[in-house]
């Protein structure tokens, strides 16, 4: 997985709270068994006035010239709540987003971000409001994100710390293949299994035929 150490780019604001993954990637846009081919479906119901013919809605933030080429999303609280669909992150990533800055995230969505090299940077509410206002006022809505020092730097000299769990930071900084890392522990896992399964064998019945 591509690592994330730092990134600078245009930040687009989508400030309402509780933006759910159905809004990020409508079910109808999950068209194949694939992690790609999703960028065109990102925010489809908001981004297009005609979803089928892909006619852009000029009022939607990502269609405004000022925010074209945005690679950072400034989002409201509980961003990515709702359905677990990892397609929401795949769509954001494919569209070009590398980082999302928000006061909070849906838990499953947050985990999905980490596993796809997208940084979910949690900032406090007051700092978030200040940053959003500065982005709005600034001639250029640029942000710089530093994962080593966990800082977001914006217009007017604003510097805001962000948080994320240590294990997630490590995974992003190193571009870790999480499965590969855990597979190195299989002896330990199998040793656990060898005690756990005989102790509670009723949890492990299998292959029971349909009646």
């Amino acid at each position, binding site marked *: 997985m591509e690592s994330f150490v730092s990134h600078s780019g245009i930040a687009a604001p989508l400030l309402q709270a509780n933006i759910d993954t159905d809004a990020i990637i409508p079910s109808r846009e*999950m068209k194949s068994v694939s992690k790609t081919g999703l960028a065109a479906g990102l925010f489809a*119901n908001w981004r297009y006035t005609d*979803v089928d013919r892909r006619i852009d809605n000029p009022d939607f933030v990502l269609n405004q010239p000022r925010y074209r080429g945005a690679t950072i999303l400034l989002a409201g609280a509980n961003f990515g709540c709702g359905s*677990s669909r*990892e397609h929401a992150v795949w769509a954001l990533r494919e569209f070009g987003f590398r980082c999302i800055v928000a006061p909070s995230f849906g838990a499953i969505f947050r985990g999905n971000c980490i596993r796809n090299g997208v940084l979910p940077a949690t900032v406090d509410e007051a700092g978030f409001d200040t940053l959003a206002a500065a982005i709005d006022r600034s001639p250029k809505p640029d942000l710089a994100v530093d994962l080593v020092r966990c800082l977001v730097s914006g217009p007017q000299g604003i510097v805001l710390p962000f948080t994320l769990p240590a*294990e997630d930071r490590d995974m992003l900084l190193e571009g870790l293949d999480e499965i590969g890392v855990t597979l190195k522990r299989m002896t330990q896992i199998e040793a656990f299994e060898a005690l756990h399964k005989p102790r*509670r064998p009723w*949890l492990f019945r*299998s292959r029971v035929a349909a009646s």
Partner: protein
Amino acid sequence: MGETLFDKIWNRHAVTELADGSTLIYVDRILLHERTGAIAVKSLLEAGRQVHAPDQALAVIDHIVDTFPGRTDKTLMPGGTEFIRETRSATRLAGIELLDIDDARQGIVHVVSPELGIAQPGATIICPDSHTCTQGALGALAWGVGSSECEHALATQTLAVRKPRALRVLFEGELGYGVTAKDMILHLISTHGASGGAGFAVEFAGETVSALSVEARMTLCNMAVEFAAWTGLCAPDEKVFDYLVGRPYAPDASQWEAAVADWRSLRNDDDAAFDHEIHIDAAAIAPTITWGTSPQHATAISGRTPDPAAAADPVARQTLARALDYMGLVPGQALEGLPIDAAFIGSCTNSRVSDLRAAADVLRGRRVAEGVRAVCVPGSTPVKIAAEAEGLDAVFRAAGFEWRESGCSMCFFAGGEHFAAQSRVATTTNRNFENRQGPGVRSHLASPATVAASAIAGQIADVRKLAR
């Protein structure tokens, strides 16, 4: 200090603590469905890896399969067939059992798992589906993940998880007539917000919860995710043990006593402490319905929509105004009496036999109002068959409901069937997001009884006002 129920299940499954402070948790059961599961298995196999324990996984076809009688894998949803066929081939290659469309056990994954006895007290269960928390009703630790985490679990039988904090929601007192588990959870989310459970494993407890049937507890736990909780669960009791007797994956006769003895230990120690507690008086809960585009936008059936002008900050005002606009409502508008275009009874929230009985009790001898499209999708094929054996299908049909094969159906819109654009739907599902049930569709979440009463009235209705 003593352990909570959550602590006990967590500690029993902790393989090791990791250097960063998270825990490697052993996963007893991995459930999959065609929408997000095929990609997980496919990705694993393409990386040249194997499923560690195929016997501990089970896949079902539920999400994009159609529900009209005679359905096949040639779905109304464009590309749906590919999802089904890729799931078949991936599970076959991996040696994972699949409950295919015509399997007698087929259904919505979170209906099927408890039904088969896979969801059990003390089990750790994951699925790439946000409503996995439903299964916490059986005293399991069950949570939703993305496809990549699912892939990790399939490869290693574990997940690295940072332990959530513990929240207990205590419901005390008796529910009034016409008030159900669905109303309880909508009440909680509307009073404490869609983020109220963020970072917590939520235990639902108290006499009100104890008085609920196991199926009703599933409704309660189902929407824990809409409360932003990591999961929801209830302590297992005699009702849960009785529920599990004889189910195919439940302990067999030779294991039963040992299992129940173990299950009885799955309760909070007397000196266990929670990080946070919420107390709710059951008498304060009325039949509840959503008015907006988040499950937190809910009110008692006699309530009114809010006024955005009264909101704290500009963004909140804008959000409320936007929700009202999408829903075609104005500030201070009554919910009761709002004409509806459709009624939907189904989904992993409310599609089990007790849900269908509750709706049938309202529908019996009555007719759906003129112009209202009414659809009922039983949660699984066994639910459908059991309902038919009780004659519930006849009640639904006589009232004017379509009676379908099982699946997730019109809980969401994936390009197949959907309610007409801008239609107002009374629905027993769990999400009223913009466009969730179709382009511009206006979803009002409620209990089966409220949805049935509204279908008959042709408008949002208070089930308590109907003659019993």
